[in-house]
């Protein structure tokens, strides 16, 4: 292991700091550009990929939200949420939560223990850009994301000397969010500080049908608070040479509400997440060569408690665990443009995690490390002005063992001379290492596990048209097909001890459809976005050979998912509407209708906004009604969800 660490550092050193002198102008990606067009023209190196870029305007107006809500409302991804403030996991195309990779400014946010990300812990306030790579396209930046990957970026504003905003929001169930953003600098130096604090009593009322009382109850023990800051320092040594240092700290303390059927208990369950992340990025861009070096260091400390109180007020703990995760990563990205038709790309990456956890009640725990050294080499070529293709190969070595090669290739074809109609096709093979819990958890961890293997292909049609100077439309249709083998599942064995095994083979197929429209005049602006996904993610094989699971939809994966967003800006006022539809989900592997099938539901929200400008200062007010029709729904079995809620936020920007 030490050897691997040394090799990793040596290689990064060689590639990252190799001196080259190029004195060309800076490329566009360093500037923060307001998006005017419906879509941005795809660069050669991203042709053939299925990528979703969340509109910057949506990100800006939702800075009080959390990442789970944004992805649920504005993309084809499916969010499984245990409640506001509680665990929220994301899946692409009917795959598992651990098959979604999330990176922020070069740092992987997946917790190496369960291998997944809790999206409710990622505040939108620090995020400036969101890109999604679906299916095999995720190999473009990394590995392990058998479903897809989410890339988050926080960025400076180079064109501003001094800027900032002060935000306050207040909402139902005792929810408050206060945040401040301050930044500025000169042509060669920028600094930005964002500070936030969010808290909620989360004591919403709900009608309990699960405990025999059939009455309205107030949700207990679901309160949470999050505080944090993001500091950025950017140095521009030369026009094409930028150093950035990011420091992100967050402390989240959350209580988790009991199941609805447990409301007559004195159970308590809480978690404290302490995260500190440093990201150093050095970008050096030239006419032919682009270099980007990332160094990251992160620490996560998680304290989890679960207990009951007896009749005589004795607290009986069930779990009392502490986890400490320290991760280092280094990445070097190189893009060499031989000419405008041919690009070579290479990413060399190394990551190391040291995990230790211990539960005081059960006296179990483990201390393990994971080191991964990988290299992704790809070539991208335009064969003529309408046809391009890429070939990619990722190789990976880990302290657990060697991973088989991960190849990918794709083509991008412009179907019409005049119109922007594209056909994309992509094939790949990807692997996902078992998480540290899968391997080492006691009881049940299985150190003989094999990595999960994914073969995927997708085909897309994209159509973009700027009809006239006011109106533009973008639509895309992507059909996907993938097979995931050796899917790791935890199953209870004798006497309630669960164990992890490579049990399943899953076929995930379906399509993702997106329609985006944009209409803009001097006084009126209209935006529309619709995402619909059809996902049939089914069991192909189960080595336990059990019952009626073959051909059945995976639990908690809806076949149909739709979201729609419409916004109208008239001078300084705005009104927007969100609709989210989640189809029926089964909670039995045999898809029984009469046993635990969660019905489909739709949620509506409405937001009214007003902007007042006083000299250089802007005042924005937003009034939002979530779950407008007070819909009753169950996202996860036996968990209460809030009805209608209101929120008001006020933002002062200068």
């Amino acid at each position: 292991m030490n050897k691997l660490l040394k090799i990793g550092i040596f290689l990064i050193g060689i590639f990252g700091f190799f001196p080259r002198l190029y004195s060309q102008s800076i490329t566009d990606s360093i500037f923060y550009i307001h998006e005017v067009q419906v879509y941005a023209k795809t660069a050669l190196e991203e042709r053939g990929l299925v990528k979703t870029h969340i509109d910057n305007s949506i990100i800006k107006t939702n800075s009080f939200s959390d990442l789970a809500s944004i992805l649920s409302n504005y993309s084809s991804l499916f969010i499984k949420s245990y409640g506001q403030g509680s665990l929220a996991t994301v899946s692409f195309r009917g795959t598992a939560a651990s098959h979604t990779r999330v990176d922020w400014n070069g740092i992987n946010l997946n917790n190496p223990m369960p291998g997944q990300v809790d999206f409710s812990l990622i505040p939108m306030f620090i995020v400036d850009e969101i890109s999604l790579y679906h299916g095999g396209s995720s190999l473009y930046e990394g590995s392990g994301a058998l479903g897809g990957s989410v890339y988050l970026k926080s960025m400076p504003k180079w064109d501003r000397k001094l800027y900032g905003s002060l935000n306050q929001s207040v909402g139902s169930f005792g929810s408050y969010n206060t945040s401040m953003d301050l930044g500025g600098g000169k042509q060669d130096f920028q600094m930005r500080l964002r500070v936030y604090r969010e808290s909620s009593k989360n004591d919403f009322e709900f009608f309990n049908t699960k405990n025999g009382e059939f009455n309205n109850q107030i949700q207990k023990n679901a309160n949470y608070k999050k505080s944090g800051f993001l500091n950025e320092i950017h140095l521009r040594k030369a026009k094409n040479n930028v150093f950035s240092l990011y420091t992100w700290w967050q402390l989240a303390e959350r209580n988790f509400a009991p199941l609805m059927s447990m409301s007559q208990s004195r159970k308590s369950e809480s978690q404290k997440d302490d995260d500190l992340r440093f990201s150093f990025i050095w970008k050096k861009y030239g006419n032919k060569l682009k270099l980007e070096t990332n160094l990251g260091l992160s620490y996560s400390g998680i304290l989890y408690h679960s207990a009951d109180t007896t009749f005589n007020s004795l607290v009986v703990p069930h779990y009392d665990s502490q986890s400490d995760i320290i991760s280092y990563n280094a990445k070097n990205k190189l893009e060499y443009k031989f000419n405008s038709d041919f690009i070579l790309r290479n990413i060399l990456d190394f990551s190391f995690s040291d995990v230790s956890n211990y539960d005081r009640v059960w006296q179990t725990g483990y201390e393990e490390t994971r080191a991964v050294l990988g290299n992704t080499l790809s070539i991208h070529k335009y064969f003529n002005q309408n046809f391009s293709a890429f070939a990619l190969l990722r190789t990976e070595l880990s302290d657990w063992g060697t991973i088989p090669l991960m190849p990918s290739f794709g083509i991008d074809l412009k179907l019409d001379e005049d119109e922007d109609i594209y056909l994309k096709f992509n094939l790949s093979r990807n692997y996902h290492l078992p998480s540290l819990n899968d391997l080492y958890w006691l009881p049940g961890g299985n150190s003989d596990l094999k990595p999960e293997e994914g073969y995927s292909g997708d085909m897309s049609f994209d159509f973009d048209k700027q009809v006239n100077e006011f109106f533009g439309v973008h639509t895309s249709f992507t059909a996907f097909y993938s097979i995931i083998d050796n899917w790791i599942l935890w199953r209870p064995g004798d006497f309630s001890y669960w164990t992890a095994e490579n049990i399943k083979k899953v076929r995930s197929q379906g399509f993702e459809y997106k329609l985006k429209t944009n209409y803009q005049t001097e006084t009126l602006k209209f935006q529309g976005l619709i995402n619909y996904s059809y996902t049939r993610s089914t069991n192909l094989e189960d080595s336990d050979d059990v019952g009626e699971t073959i051909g059945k939809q995976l639990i908690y994966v809806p076949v149909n998912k739709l979201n729609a967003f419409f916004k109208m800006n008239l001078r300084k006022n705005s009104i927007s509407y969100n609709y989210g539809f989640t189809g029926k989900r089964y909670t039995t592997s045999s898809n029984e209708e009469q046993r635990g099938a969660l019905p489909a539901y739709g949620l509506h929200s409405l937001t009214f906004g007003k902007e007042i400008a006083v000299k250089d200062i802007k005042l924005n007010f937003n009034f939002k009604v979530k779950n407008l029709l007070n819909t009753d729904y169950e996202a996860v079995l036996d968990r209460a969800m809030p009805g209608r809620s209101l929120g008001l936020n006020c933002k002062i920007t200068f």
Partner: protein
Amino acid sequence: MIAVNKKIIYYLMVIFLISISCERDKGIAIFEYEKSAGVFILNEGNFTSGNSSLSFYEPALKKLSNDVFYNANGFPVGDALQSISFNDTTAYLCISNSAKVFVFNSRSFKHIKTIPNLVAPRYLKVINSEKAYISDLYSPYISIMNLKTNEISGSIRIGHSTENFVTYGDLLFVNSWSYNDKIYILNSNTDILLDSITVRKQPNSMVIDKNNKLWVLSDGGYDGSPYGQVNAALTKINVDNFSVEKIFEFKDIHNSPVKLCINPGADSLFFLSGGWGKNKDIEGGVFAFSIADESLPTKAFIKENNKNFYGLAIDPESSHIYCSDALDYLQSGYVYSFAPNGTAIDSFKVGIAPGGFGFLKTSR
């Protein structure tokens, strides 16, 4: 004319609104109960999903009814249904992860009362017409329940988790398996903890035979447990002097036998054994052991084959053997019934993860 029309419409609206508000609640089917001896099957469901359920099977009619509690009451059982006990026409459900006990009528399945705020209730033992004991997986106390008022009236401090009960006169034996190796002895008249017997690690079930010997089945702990792992064993104890008379050790350390049961004649023991996880090579199934046997059985009495046996019980009246198959724990399971000689009688589909059984007699 217009005014009259308006009035008619108004009245029609009122009638319409009244009629729809009197609509019967959806989801409560009218259950028809026929008085016949029956078996309750306790479906545990998935931990933290709240999807436990109760099934009722009448062997004389080969008739099965699923979700009997929900259908009679309109609300579900809760999370991790562990056991059922009977007292005349009343029955008690220990719902372990919902921290409560339900008191209900065993004939109509109608809910009578909820005993809330327990910790993780496992088994309820009716001591006499006035009181019962409730064991707990996490709490160091056994709760004493007043059966007249259906309320908790006291507690006995054991200091460890407790599981099931076996009576012998005034004595009550309680096994404690979680990171423990003890059988606690209580005086059920005075509610006093008298003594304890040390057995093999993690005693999970016990029975008493016709010669008044207490048999305890221990699984020995799991691989990598901080409490340690030893071979599973069946221990024979003399209940008069609390001494261990014989220990039958299971050869394979990966064997984790559970669910020790006894036939009505109290001379044959049955238990579930088999590998889990990595250890699927051990032949799984229902094993039979006579109290006169010198060594443990090596072959299964009823082979599991590719099933996943999870629960086992023996009907104290008919001697029929019932075992449940939980499949992958994520779908409806099955129950198989056998004659005392191992011949298959019936099989039926129940709820998720069927683990426990309860036998109801009409003569009670």
